[in-house]
C-alpha cells in the first residue's frame, strides 16, 4: 500500500510539471503583456519589465518559474502592487473554501438523500418531485438563482443578508446558490446508481434473508450505489472550494474566484501561474484522496492494490 501511495505521488508531481509547462507556453502565446492596457512611457515599461524579470529570454523565465515553484514561491503579483501571489491565496482561499465546503455539504447530503428517496419511490410523486428539483438545479444558472434569492429572501422577506461576508448568516444564500447545481447532479447520479443497484441479484438475496427494507437499503443498497459518486466528489471539491467569480462577485465575497479570471484579463503572469498551479495541485490531491477512499469502500480495489505491493 505504501509503495502504491508513493508511486501515485510521483505521478502527481509529473502531472503538475506538465500543467506548469503547458500553462507557461499558453500564457506566453497569448498576445499582449501585463502593461499593454496601461499607458506607460517606454522607459518605465522597460524598468517594470526588468523588475518582474520579463526582459529575460523565455527559457530563463521558465527556469525561474520552476525554481520558484520548488520553493513554494509563486512570485509577486504584477497587478496587485506589492502583494505576493502566496499572500493573496493565503488571504482569499479560506473564504472560498468555507463557502465551497458549506455548499458541498448542503449539496451532497441533500442530493444523495433526494436521489435515494427518488429511487425508492420510482415512478411515484416523490420521484417526480426529486426529478423536477434536479432539472431546475441543472438548467437554471447559478447567477439567476443567486439574484432571485437575493431579491426574495434578502430584500422582500428580509430574512437573510443580501451580500457581504461577515457572519454565518451571510454565507447561507451564496452557499445555496453555489450548491444547487451540484445538488442536482448528485440527485441524478444517486438516483440512477441506486436504481441499478436495487435491481441487482444481491438485493434479492438480501430480501430472501428476511432483512427489513431499511437494512436492505442501507447495508446493501446505498453502500454500493455511492461508489461511482465518490469518484466525482474529489474533483468536485477542488472545483467548488477554489471559488467562482460569479457568486463571489454577486455577494461581495472576498474569495479567490475573482483572481482566477482577472489574472488572465490582466496578463498577470505570476498570478495566472500561481492560481493554475494551486488549483491543479488541489485537484490532483483530491483525486489521490478519492483513490484511497475508494479502496476503503470497495474491497475489490483494496485487495488489488495490496497485491501490487
Amino acid at each position, binding site marked *: 500500500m505504501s509503495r502504491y501511495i508513493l508511486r501515485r505521488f510521483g505521478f502527481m508531481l509529473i502531472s503538475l510539471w506538465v500543467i506548469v509547462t503547458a500553462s507557461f507556453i499558453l500564457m506566453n502565446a497569448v498576445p499582449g503583456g501585463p502593461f499593454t492596457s496601461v499607458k506607460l512611457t517606454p522607459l518605465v515599461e522597460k524598468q517594470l519589465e526588468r523588475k518582474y524579470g520579463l526582459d529575460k529570454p523565455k527559457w530563463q523565465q521558465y527556469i525561474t518559474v520552476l525554481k520558484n515553484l520548488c520553493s513554494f514561491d509563486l512570485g509577486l503579483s504584477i497587478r496587485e502592487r506589492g502583494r505576493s501571489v502566496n499572500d493573496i491565496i493565503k488571504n482569499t482561499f479560506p473564504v472560498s473554501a468555507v463557502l465551497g465546503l458549506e455548499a458541498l455539504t448542503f449539496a451532497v447530503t441533500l442530493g444523495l438523500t433526494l436521489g435515494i428517496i427518488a429511487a425508492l419511490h420510482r415512478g411515484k410523486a416523490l420521484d417526480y418531485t426529486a426529478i423536477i428539483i434536479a432539472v431546475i438545479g441543472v438548467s437554471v444558472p447559478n447567477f439567476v438563482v443567486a439574484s432571485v434569492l437575493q431579491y426574495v429572501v434578502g430584500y422582500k422577506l428580509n430574512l437573510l443578508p443580501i451580500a457581504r461576508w461577515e457572519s454565518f448568516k451571510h454565507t447561507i444564500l451564496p452557499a445555496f446558490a453555489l450548491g444547487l447545481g451540484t445538488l442536482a447532479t448528485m440527485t441524478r447520479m444517486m438516483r440512477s446508481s441506486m436504481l441499478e443497484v436495487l435491481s*441487482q*441479484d*444481491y438485493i*434479492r*438475496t*438480501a*430480501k*430472501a*434473508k*428476511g*432483512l*427489513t*427494507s431499511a*437494512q436492505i437499503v442501507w*447495508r*446493501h443498497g446505498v*453502500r*454500493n450505489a455511492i*461508489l461511482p459518486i465518490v469518484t466525482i466528489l474529489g474533483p468536485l471539491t477542488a472545483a467548488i472550494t477554489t471559488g467562482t467569480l460569479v457568486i463571489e462577485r454577486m455577494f461581495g465575497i472576498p474569495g479567490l474566484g475573482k483572481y482566477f479570471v482577472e489574472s488572465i484579463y490582466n496578463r498577470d503572469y505570476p498570478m495566472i501561474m500561481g492560481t493554475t498551479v494551486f488549483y491543479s495541485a488541489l485537484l490532483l490531491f483530491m483525486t489521490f484522496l478519492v483513490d484511497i477512499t475508494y479502496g476503503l*469502500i*470497495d*474491497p*475489490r480495489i483494496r*485487495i488489488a492494490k495490496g497485491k501490487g505491493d
Partner: protein
Amino acid sequence: MVERMEHTTTNKEFNQALTPGKPGKPVKPAETLLSIEDLHVSFHTYAGEVRAVRGVTYSVEQGGSLAVVGESGCGKTVTVQTVMGLTPIPPGHIKGGKVIFNGQDLLQLSEKQMQSIRGKHMGMIFQDPMTGLNPTMAVGRQIAETVQRHQNVSRGEAMERAVEMLSLVEIPNPRVRANQYPHQFSGGMRQRAMIAMALACEPLLLIADEPTTSLDVTIQSQILDLLQNLQERLGMTILLISHNLGVVARLSKSIVVMYAGKVVETGSSSDIFYNAAHPYTRALLRSVPRMDREIRGELASIPGTPPDLFQPPEGCAFAPRCKYAMKVCTKCDAQPIKLGDNHYVSCWLHHEANPNNPFENKSENGGRNSD
C-alpha cells in the same frame, strides 16, 4: 464422496427419524409443510397481461424433496418467488390461490410478517451465485447478518455461526474465508456460501431455484452431493426448481412437471422417469442427452414453441405441439386424472372416455426404461 453416495438410499422414514421437532420451532404435526393451491400470478406489462402462473397446485411434505421441472418461462420460478414473497408487485399481481406454509396462508401476511418468515423458516438459493452476493460485504458478515436478523445473538456470536455454516458447506479454512469478499471465491464456493446463508437459521424449507445451472458440471455434482448430504443431516425439506432432469433424478423423490404456467403431471420420481403419462413429460425425457445409448443420432427435441402467455390457449397449452392431440385438446383443458397413488396427469388421453389411449398398458416402455 463415496461415503456420501451411500446415504442417497435413505428412505423417508429415515429422514423423518432425523427430524425430531427442533425445540423452539413451530413444527406442526401436519405432514404437509407447504401447499400451493390454485395459484394464479400475472404480470402487467405495456404489451398486456402475461399470465405466468395459471392455477398451480402442488404440495411438499415435511422432510420431503420435491422437484419442479419445466422449460424456461413455464412459471416454475414465479411460483416459488410468490411463495417467498419476492415477486415484485407491481408489475406482478397475485390473482388468486393460497400458499399454505406451516399452517399459515402466506398470501394473507403483511410484508413485515413475511420478513420474519423469510430467511428464518424458509431459505432460498438462486441460480447465479456470481451476482447473488453483495460485492462490498465480507461473505461471513453476509451470513451473520441473517443470523442476527432472526436470532437474538450478538455480532460476535453471529459471526461464529457464520464460520460454523461455512465449514458445514465444506469450505476449507472457514475462519479465513469468512472475512473474504465474494470476488475472492470461485463460482462453486459462492454457491456453497449462498447455501450456508440460506441454511444459517435452520429453515424448515429450502427453496433451490436452479442451484447448479450456472456452474460447470463437476462443480454441479459437488453442489448436488452437498445438498443431498445436508438434507439428510439436517432433515430439511427441499423444493428444487430445475430444467435439468439429471439434477432432479439425484435429489428429489417427487416431481412436478409444469408447462405454460400449469402443472401437467405430478408423481414420484419413478412414476415420472419410468411411467410418464403426459406427452410433454415423455418428450422432455426423450430430449435428455444419454451417454449410455449406442445410437448417436440427433438429439430429440420438441417441435414448435411454447404458447404465448399473453393469450393462453383455451384448451391444453401443449396441444399444438402434441402429436397425439385430439379435437377435445384444443377446446377444453383437461383436469388432473389419478393414475396411481400420487401420480396425477392433466391429459385427455388418459380420460376414461378415450377408447384408444396410446400409453395404456405400455407403462413398461413408457418414458425411459431402466437400462
